[in-house]
């Protein structure tokens, strides 16, 4: 166990920093530090251009194997890349669902044909993805998925019908990975399929959800005889749960470090504000800032532990990974409250009419979704108690 980096890795750090220093300029200067959660709807055009610029420099999919167009970086190098990216104020990545979730899933479970079809567009920063998991009334429990996929042998296509909700960036995405029920009579975790679906088709309708922020990162997505090629199912029909569980692991990968650097930027802004308006002299605010700082520092090391995967030798999610969602979501929510309390009554005053929020105001509101989507804090605690501690399941009603 050791924290410091090798000289070779430090040299890699220089390389990343320098590239960003040269490229995150000009038209891209204005998107520095923008486009994070709660701000994802902003600067879409510029950020899509930025994604292609990153790709041109070989800085997308840095952790993917070289054979799939990635940079083949070691975990240490990925850590460094995310650190430097965030330090430079690299904007929220429009490609992150493709790079972090869809791509790794296809690499792990997809066919060669799927790899050829989908990976290059992700690496090139041209194909954006979204995630079709949650459904109305089902929460984030995949066992409750009701969207149906039936195979039409004549068309040689899968035909999808149903509705997804809380789909972020569906308006911008070219593709969506969708969990749907391939066996109409199945229930629970059985009979699910994992589909790769083209968004630009008549059978797909996207309807933005107006959120607490007044903006609409999230959407409802309706499938009315939406079509998928026969080849666009990952794994066999019925394997959807397995594939989705594999994907869950990717969510807790190196990209968590990128998220943390985003958190760090937010905390830095809170600290700067506190110094500026005198809240930094308030002993209670001081405690809360110090706590946020300490827990973010620990969050980083917790991620590094997750990446080492040591205690998961039995194939189960390690304990430090089991608690991670609950931990960061709760931390982030507290940061939102801290930001407001540092601002004091000025926290109430917006940047403009009709409802133009500052970055921290938007963050404050947006983080309320962190403890809900992808399994509420309550669900997370159930999972921790049952999988992590072997406590008995709640009786189903």
């Amino acid at each position: 166990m050791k924290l410091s980096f090798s000289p070779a890795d430090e040299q890699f750090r220089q390389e990343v920093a320098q590239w960003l220093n040269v490229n995150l300029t000009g038209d891209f200067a204005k998107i520095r530090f923008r486009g994070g959660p709660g701000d994802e709807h902003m600067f879409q055009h510029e950020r899509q251009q930025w994604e292609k610029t990153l790709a041109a420099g070989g800085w997308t999919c840095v952790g993917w194997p070289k054979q799939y167009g990635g940079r083949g970086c070691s975990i240490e190098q990925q850590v460094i890349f995310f650190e430097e990216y965030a330090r430079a104020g690299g904007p929220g990545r429009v490609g992150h669902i493709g790079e972090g979730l869809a791509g790794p899933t296809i690499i792990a479970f997809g066919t060669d044909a799927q790899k050829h079809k989908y990976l290059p567009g992700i690496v090139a920063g041209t194909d954006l993805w979204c995630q079709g998991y949650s459904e109305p009334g089902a929460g984030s429990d995949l066992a409750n998925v009701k969207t149906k996929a039936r195979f039409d042998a004549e068309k040689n296509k899968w035909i999808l019908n149903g509705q997804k909700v809380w789909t972020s960036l569906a308006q911008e995405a070219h593709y969506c990975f969708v969990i749907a029920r391939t066996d109409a009579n199945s229930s629970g975790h059985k009979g699910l399929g994992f589909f790769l679906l083209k968004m630009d088709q008549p059978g797909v309708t996207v309807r933005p959800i107006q959120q607490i922020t007044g903006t609409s990162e999230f959407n409802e997505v309706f499938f009315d005889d939406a079509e998928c090629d026969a080849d666009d199912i990952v794994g066999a029909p019925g394997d959807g749960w397995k594939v989705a569980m594999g994907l869950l692991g990717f969510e807790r990968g190196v990209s968590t470090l990128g998220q943390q650097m985003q958190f760090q930027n937010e905390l830095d802004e809170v600290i700067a504000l506190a110094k500026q308006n005198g809240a930094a002299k308030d002993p209670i605010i001081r405690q809360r800032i110090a706590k946020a700082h300490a827990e973010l520092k620990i969050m980083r090391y917790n991620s590094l532990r997750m990446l080492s995967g040591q205690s998961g030798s039995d194939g189960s999610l390690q304990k430090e990974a089991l608690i991670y969602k609950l931990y960061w979501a709760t931390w982030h929510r507290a940061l939102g409250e801290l930001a407001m309390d540092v601002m004091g009554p000025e926290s109430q005053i917006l940047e403009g009419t009709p409802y133009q929020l500052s970055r921290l105001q938007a963050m404050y509101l947006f983080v309320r979704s962190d403890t809900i989507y992808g399994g509420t804090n309550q669900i997370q605690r159930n999972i921790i108690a049952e999988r992590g501690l072997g406590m008995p399941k709640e009786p189903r009603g």
Partner: protein
Amino acid sequence: MEFAFTDEQLMIRDTAQAFLAEVSTSEAIRAAMATDTGYDRQLWQQICNDLVWPALHIPEQFGGMGLGYVELVAMLEQMGRYLLCSPFYASVCLGVNSLLLAGSDEQKKQWLPQLAAGTTATLAWCDGSAGERGGNWNADTISATATPDGQDYILSGEYRYVVDGASAELLIVAARLPGSVGAHGISLFVLPAHTAGVSRQTLPTLDQTRKQSAIQLHRVRVPASALLGKAGNAAPGLQTVLDLAAIALAAEQMGGAQQCLDMAVAYTKERVQFGRSIASFQAIKHKAADMMLRVEVARSGVYYAACVAQEALEGGPLAGELSEAASIAKSYCSDAYFKNAAECLQMHGGVGFTWEYDVHLHFKRAKASEHFLGTGAYHRERLAQWLLDQEGAA
């Protein structure tokens, strides 16, 4: 001693509840939010003319109903619960109270009947420095000046965080003798909002159910009759007004906390997951139980403070406890409302995060009310000063 509502008080509460449930609906709130003034003028007329609520605690000799702070609080609780968008709080809890506490009989006779009849008023005192250090509500945030000029005064300066400041018809403003500091040299003045030299801007706010404004006075000339009380001596009276206002706000917060509980219980009873109403899960039940605890404790704190407030208005034996009771109620209710609103949002899951559901209105109002007039921490520190910094105390 008597620690239950009288039948009359119960009737006032129930009438307010029934009326507000009908008129302050989700749609009505959203419509009012979108107006410039932030409230429905027709509804306000109805409240003033038919229900005569603004007259509630104004003494009969000044055109009021002559009821007390307990009755007022019973009504404010319902306003907070139903998020009534109206100038009531500014007009009654800031305006009327300022005149009651600081005005001469002459001035009360002039203004209170108008306020009782629905003329709107507000109080402006602090400048933007109230927004510093996480919220500073001490007298040193009063920077506007009042310079004697013959029989008149010339008022100059800025105010911020003024509740309904852009729509109020009557302004009560605090200003200080040039060069004075702290609690010294402060005077209160009452003036029509259209007086020459007054400019006002509505500030766009996160919580849209209550408008805030900035006000600038550019060498505003007011006559001596505008001065409330003795020149330079307004600090104690202003503090009493702010304490009364804090108690009133706490009552609203308590009502809001109650509504968040009710919404959360209703929603979770209806919502089925894992084959059960989610209200049957202990995690949800225990959250709800903690919310109810906070509501009931808040209620006790507010009623207690209301009794003290009434004594303060009457000069009763417990009048000296006003600031303490205000800080107790405001600190507890600020935390209770925010926590309940946050839990309510969490218990609603995804839909609680939408603009469409009403949860966010409470969630935002709770944070706004928490900060206005001082957070829980601010008021606890005020309590700590009495408890810990006085010789011989405790």
